[in-house]
């Protein structure tokens, strides 16, 4: 790659309006920080809620992510899209929180064979109940629960990659940067995630064609 092309690539991030906002935050512009919070709050909380299943904990973690952005403002260098940087912070926070939750579960649930991300007892019941239902058409509420449970069967990294891919419309390169992985690793991760999801949801596909698409 020529140095001129490299220079153009570097400057490409500067065209991201959120990078521009973050550069203003770097100069202690609090209003710009407020704009970033407004722009990303629902997106961050959405990802954290899918990962933690706890909206209050998701808000706490989202706030922590924003605080970390603010604390790091003076050392901010635009080397990627702002969203990629923010979701990298989010991914680190989510990973740490899940690890901490899994340690707590290991202590409180010693003796059971349910893994750290294993289903809760009431979810097992729901799964068994739902498992009897593919033959009939589930209503949207029931189907939503089935989809949520299917998402929970993915491991943490598959789930995060899938959520960034689906809801943040991130490219493989951006997911790789957010999750500190190679592009090839993201490709494999997403393939396994999509394949696992298909295995889980295949029995429910009949009659769902008009349901999923927005």
């Amino acid at each position, binding site marked *: 790659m020529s140095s001129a092309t490299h220079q153009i690539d570097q400057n490409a991030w500067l065209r991201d309006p959120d990078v521009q906002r973050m550069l203003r935050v770097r100069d202690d512009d609090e209003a710009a920080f407020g704009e970033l919070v407004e722009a990303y709050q629902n997106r961050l909380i959405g990802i954290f809620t899918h990962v933690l299943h706890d909206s209050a904990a998701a808000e706490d973690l989202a706030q922590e992510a924003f605080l*970390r952005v603010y604390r790091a403002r003076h*050392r901010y260098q635009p080397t990627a899209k702002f969203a990629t940087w923010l979701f990298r912070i989010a991914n680190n926070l989510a990973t740490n929180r899940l690890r901490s939750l899994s340690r707590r579960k290991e202590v409180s649930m010693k003796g059971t064979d349910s893994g750290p991300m294993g289903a809760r007892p009431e979810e097992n019941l729901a799964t068994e109940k739902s498992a009897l239902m593919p033959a009939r058409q589930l209503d949207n509420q029931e189907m939503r629960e089935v989809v949520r449970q299917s*998402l929970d069967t993915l491991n943490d990294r598959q789930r995060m990659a899938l959520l960034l891919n689906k809801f943040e419309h991130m490219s493989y390169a951006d997911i790789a940067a957010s999750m500190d992985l190679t592009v090839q690793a993201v490709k494999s991760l997403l393939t396994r995630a999509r394949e696992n999801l298909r295995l889980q*949801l295949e029995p429910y596909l009949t009659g769902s064609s008009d349901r999923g698409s927005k």
Partner: protein
Amino acid sequence: MSSDKKKEELVAYLDGELPDEAASRVEKSLVDDAAVRRDVEQLTKTFDLLDLLPASQASDGFAEKTLTAIRTQSSEPKPESTKDDASVEKPQSNYSLRATVWGIRAAAFLGLLFVATTAFNGAFKQNGEPIDELLTELPVIQRLDEYQEVDNVQFLKALSESGLFDERDKAPQD
């Protein structure tokens, strides 16, 4: 091409991540192979089902609370241990956590050992002199005031030669 590779290509094709040449290959197989068409259809439908998941909304005042938090934080003195750049923060593994805990315990033990040794030495030494030396010099110490009044070593030697101290040396035998 392996089955896993084919699946990767299909998923990457659906995500628009395949280079043109590979995308053309997938499109050709879509025309020629009903199984590939079925795979693509199922992958697409299951992916679309994720749209059923509820969208989350921040609670009222979330942004304001966050801004208040940064104002509060800015007005507080920054703790030295604060790690600003979360982007480089790595989650600690269980192993490294355990190693850290044991390291702290070992350091605390060594610290206690050092304090105990220092205290022992302090109790049994004075100005760096061992206690044995103090015991040997005890008779001198006991008469130090008298010796200081003499204030003349030559005179003291003369007294010693005169046999004045012989009486003291003989005393224990009496």
